[in-house]
């Protein structure tokens, strides 16, 4: 990895994406995953969040789906 690639690298970073199973949220979740982050897909639609996190996991990215809330 060269210096510029390192600047964009998110390996070992943890991210939360709210609305993460939504139309744009999926793009954000996937992009951060591709850059190396562990992504928590948080969405008011829990089933959609879990399903999308599983899609990311199938690509060997570390992801987890949760229901949005401030608990």
């Amino acid at each position, binding site marked *: 990895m060269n210096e510029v690639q390192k600047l964009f690298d998110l390996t070992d970073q943890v991210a939360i994406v709210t609305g993460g199973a939504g139309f744009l949220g999926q793009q954000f979740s996937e992009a951060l995953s591709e850059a190396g982050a562990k992504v928590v897909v948080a969405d008011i639609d829990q089933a959609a969040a879990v399903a999308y996190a599983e899609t990311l996991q199938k690509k060997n990215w570390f992801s987890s789906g949760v229901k949005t809330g*401030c608990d």
Partner: protein
Amino acid sequence: MDRTLKKFGQLDILVNSAALDPKFDNQNQSQNVTSFEEFPLQSWKDAMDVNLTGMFLTCQYATREMKKKGKGSLINICSTYGISGPDQRLYESLGEPRRYKPVYYTVSKAGVLGLTKYVATYFEGTEIRCNALTPGGVERDHDQAFKDAYASRTVLGRMAYPHEMKGAVVFLASEASSYMTGTNLVVDGGWTAW
């Protein structure tokens, strides 16, 4: 938030992408045919709860954790309609009742920029950065007439492809943007340049 910390032990990046943005389909028609003069107070309040209060709370929780390391990146999703008013002409269809982009959308998205600047400046002297990301219209299941009308308002002459937001979010999340805070990255095909 707690579950994230329990599972991963840290939080470095928050992307606030949750928002109410009703599409112009039949299910939402009651909301979308509502003119400004008759816009229901409850719809306004519900949207403010999700689009602004929700974002305030997630920023609050996330920065509590980021403060421990003095570092983190918060990315709040705005909209071109948070920068300029909606072009309501785009939502007109011949022979159909007049439809409007709801008032709360512009107001809450404009508020996102205020929250972003507040959070950014509040954490002065740290590496906790907060920026907004403003996508333009992204192509999905819109009808062709809408796509064409939207495209004609952009400099690039088209709506965005979904993947065109990926570079911007990784840029803001990563060290590539380490000297950026309190600002707004606009990815709108030139919509707001005209």
